[in-house]
């Protein structure tokens, strides 16, 4: 039943907001009082929120009978999950618990935006999106967005706290930021390539200089500039991190800024806003 699904989705959204808020509070309390147990609880709360977010996506997937990545609202439910994936990977690899409050805040922002602009109904999938490329293209892209968000957070932390070193790994924020960029940029590249191949199958063109494509290119070039100043020109420290952090602006604009462009009305990619 559609009405029940809407109610269930609202309940899940509110629970998610509560879980992420709890994760932030636990982290802040744990860090301020230097009580490790609270920080650990914050990590588990975050993991629980991530699982709940997965339930939300699967529920909508089943209700819609298709992958729920069609509208802005649907991607706003998916983006927090991808931030979760990237955060949990970094937690597992490098024990970067400092990411929890930032990731949770980003999730809250996305979910609150989704709650403010919910889809009135589940829209039908048009023929162009009915492709085997739909899910891998979108998932790869959003995983890239998630990783690049973390690279942004880590770059800002690296600028603020250049001397900080992890007790476990001995690495600073800058190295982690760079690691997140490497992962995010790889995913971004694969996402663009998949999009191009799909575009060729659907419309006969792998590249049409469509505004969304162009901004995908701008994001890609922005990170390429960062990678070149770091890996070729040997920039390190604050100025490299400043380039890294500012590159994320292109990603945000690619995701959410399209409707501001005068050329967007011709775009085939811009999210429907019902």
């Amino acid at each position, binding site marked *: 039943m559609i009405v029940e699904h809407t109610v269930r989705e609202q309940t899940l959204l509110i629970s998610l907001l509560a879980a992420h808020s709890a994760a932030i509070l636990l982290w802040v309390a744990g860090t301020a009082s230097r009580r490790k147990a609270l920080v650990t609880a914050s990590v588990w709360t975050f993991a629980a929120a991530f699982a709940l977010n997965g339930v939300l996506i699967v529920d909508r997937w089943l209700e819609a009978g298709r992958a729920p990545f069609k509208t802005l609202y649907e991607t706003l439910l998916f983006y927090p999950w991808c931030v979760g994936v990237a955060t949990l990977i970094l937690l597992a690899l490098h024990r970067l618990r400092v990411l929890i409050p930032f990731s949770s805040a980003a999730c809250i922002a996305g979910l609150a935006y989704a709650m403010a602009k919910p889809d*009135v109904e589940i829209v039908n999938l048009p023929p162009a999106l009915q492709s085997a490329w739909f899910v891998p293209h979108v998932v790869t892209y959003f995983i890239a967005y998630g990783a690049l968000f973390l690279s942004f957070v880590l770059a800002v932390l690296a600028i603020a706290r250049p001397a900080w070193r992890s007790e476990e790994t001995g690495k600073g924020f800058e190295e982690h930021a760079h690691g997140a960029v*490497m992962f995010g940029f790889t995913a971004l590249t694969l996402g663009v390539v998949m999009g191009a191949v799909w575009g060729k199958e659907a419309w006969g063109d*792998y590249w049409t*200089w469509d505004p969304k494509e162009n901004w995908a290119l701008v994001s890609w070039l922005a990170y390429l500039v960062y990678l070149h100043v770091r890996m*070729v*020109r*040997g920039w390190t420290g604050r100025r490299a991190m400043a380039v890294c952090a500012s590159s994320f602006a292109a990603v945000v604009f690619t995701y959410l800024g399209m409707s501001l462009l005068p050329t967007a009305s011709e775009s085939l990619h811009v999210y429907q806003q019902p």
Partner: protein
Amino acid sequence: MLLTTKNKTAGGAHPPAPRLLKYTAGAAALWVALAALGRIPLTRFQDSLGAQALLVLVVAVAGTWLWGARKELAGWLVSPPLANLFLITLLLATVAGTVVVQGAPAEEFDARYGAGAWFLRLIGAENVFQSLAFRGFLAMLSVSLVAVVVRRKAWRTSEWGFLLSHGGVVTILFGGLLSSVYGMKGFIDLHEGKSANVMIPKDEKGNFLPGQVPLGFALRLDKFEIERYPLDYRFYVHEAEEEDYKLASSTPVNEAGRWTPIGKTGSSFRAISIYPDYQVRSEVRETAGPGGSPALQLRIQGAGQSQTVNLLAGVSGRDLLDLRAAKSLVRFVWELDEKNPPVTTATVPERHQIEFRSYPGAPPEEILVKPGDSLRLADGTYVLDVVAYLPDFVYDGKTKQAATRSTMPNNPALKVSLKTPVPGDAREMWLFGLRPDFSKDHNKYPNGPEIAYHYTPAREPAEREILVVGSTMEVLDYRRGVLSGRGPLRTSGTSVAGLPDIFCEQVLARAQEIHTPLTKTKEWRNPAAEIEIRTGDQVRRETLLAGGRQALRIGTGDTLLVLEKKPDDVKSFRSRVSVLDGANKVREAVISVNNPLSYGGFRFYQSNFRKEDPTYSGILVVKDPGLSVVYTGFVMISLGIIWIFYVRPRILHARSAARRVAS
């Protein structure tokens, strides 16, 4: 793009700022020069000997200078700042290509950017991606990338990532070049059973070019199929938002049985009955109570079926039956004033009636108007000017003007201008006689006045006008207004006044008409719903017709409840085609969106369909000889990046470990 360790000039050896300035200025100057060069029509060079000589001279001078400076040039081509310069230039150019409107007509461009238009043209921003500057920079980037790969001797294992990623970009650009030089695009309009052996070529921007391009074989459309999502009718609530309406809720018909809130109005609704194929059966029943009117029940005998018609005496519009085919009119009266019978003797002119409400739900003002009238409405609050009348309204998309197709009132439309109390606020609008509700909904101010237009066509006197008099059970036959016969009304067997197929069933002195809604079939042909609307303690019942014919205004009037089909219901569309070589069928295929057909060096894409022409299929044809090169580049770049980030560090790590062991 050299390794930092090898590049002695990188970092702090030279003060970077002046060089950065020099490079930036150089790139900007080069960009503008290329943008300007790209604006010169090439034909001028082909036509003029002087211009050709000049071009040769420029190329020779530039070539000599570049040859003299080749060492410096080679160093410059592989220098790291240049890589960033290219990246940043392309980045800025791409941003410009999305921020500035692309490929707009000159007047539109000037109007939009005013004084800044010349500058945008100077930097080629009006058409970035097709400009010589953008392509020139891509070409220079390619040359630089090749130089860098060679310089770095990037074929060693640890450098494979570098080779693949940088070589991948060059490969993609080269493939794109092949595609744009040797590729082509075209379009085929196919109809079921028809074939085509040529396509109409298109340019890069998708505009049609003159002429035809032969395919070398023929493509026949055997069958075109459109698949739709299951029919899904819903109750939609729209809320007025400034100029437009915003969708506020969607309730499927099968879930509308419980009370559902209607937007922010505080009212709610629920469906009592849903009729997929709505029809109303009307019956008359004798009544003893007050009210009611005399009724005549007629049976019209058609081929194989009969239909019952009830005429009600004294109810305007319901007391007559117009038999156009027999050029006759049957009117039912209860008592007859023989000196002044209700028979038309002269032509009644057409009538334009305006129904005006100063706010939704206000008592209507009903006024007969004619073109040229100026009315003061709602005690002079509003002024309504009747500007024009078109009997057979049509909107001409080419001239963007309203016109009339004929003098027959097939689609009567009235153009009016409404002045509101707001100074300077006047709105011109078209009202349509056939769709009074349409006028109401499409010309509305939220909470503001509503105007509906009712049109009554001119009436000629009927050849025969038959009066059925209920009180005396008599039939009077008028021919062109003159009484030509009279006789008793019989309620069985014989037809009324000799009219074929019209029989009297019964006459009731006082009757009430009872309407019973029903569904004719189970198919969703004419959906309607009977609903209840609850506001506070009050519940009212309404019938809501689907398909945009009716919208219920709720609350203060800026919330609408409609019954509509869920939009975008086309799930897929596909063409079953045969490839023909002469008369032989060489291949059968199904082309659908995301599933093109490759044949004979072409790819055929399902492009579009036409709602009004279900046998039509639009096929996009693409010839793209650079495609495999581009795809190779995609693979290279993907592998290259993975190699650089995740394989190379392991190789280097293993090597240094091995070296440590050896030492």
